């Protein structure tokens, strides 16, 4: 029960963070990516702020399963840079630059019930299934 309440809280805090930092506004994100235009560096501060908190925390707690609310820690164990990582990241970047939405802000923006963001989320989910089909 405590775990479930905390997960809900973490989602809310994440959503608040995306809203406070205007990541939920695609035009703001495009402003960051448009470095050859009039550049808005704000998004760098969002990532910086998040890493500033998460990096020391994850470093301290990564091996201390007895200190956390779950018995097992599931961290990604892949180490090598492979073709799927490279191609996937480039594909994602093209989509991100085309609209200004990445998955987190897109999900959060469902709250605004804006038809554009709902269309984006539906297309993104279709993309998940398409790549699953390609894999199988």
């Amino acid at each position: 029960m405590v775990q479930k309440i905390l997960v809900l809280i973490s989602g809310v805090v994440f959503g608040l963070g995306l809203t406070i930092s205007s990541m939920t506004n695609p035009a703001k994100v495009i402003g960051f990516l448009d470095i050859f235009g009039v550049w808005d560096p704000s998004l760098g501060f969002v990532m910086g702020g998040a890493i500033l908190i998460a990096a020391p925390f994850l470093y301290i707690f990564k091996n201390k399963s007895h200190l956390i609310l779950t018995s097992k820690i599931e961290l990604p164990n892949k180490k090598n840079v492979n073709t799927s990582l490279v191609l996937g990241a480039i594909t994602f970047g093209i989509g991100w630059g085309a609209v200004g939405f990445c998955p987190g802000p897109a999900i959060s923006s469902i709250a605004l019930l804006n038809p554009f963001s709902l269309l984006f989320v539906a297309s993104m989910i279709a993309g998940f299934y398409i790549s699953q089909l390609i894999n199988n």
Partner: protein
Amino acid sequence: MISVDTINFTPFSSLFGGIFIGVAVCIFFISTGRLAGVSGIVNNALTKSHNLFVNSLFLLGLILGPLLFMFFSQNSISFQVTSSIPLIIIGGLLVGIGTKISSGCTSGHGVCGISRFSIRSIVATILFMLAAIITVLVLKLIGIN
């Protein structure tokens, strides 16, 4: 060569929002032992029954965040999409396919992965940032966006 947009630049609210995201990653980690990468959580919620309830709770929270912000601040949230409908559909498909193939997005690779000093995530973040910057430039040059 680079000119900074001093009108729209919001260093304080962006840093503050980023700190919230960092705190959220920490809370998610101590409660689940997993990293809060949004594309992975959406994927798992759609395709796996394992952790379905917990994943759905996190996604529900993501949607509640902006609603609580509007409720308590009494402010609306500025929201502007500059892309056409076909571009939104193509962009959404590419974001879905790309994050699935590379196992992460801005939160998974860009925040959680870099926080763990993962080489894979650092490479992924540099690549998707570069690809996005070039895409914005190209779309602007050909007059689409």
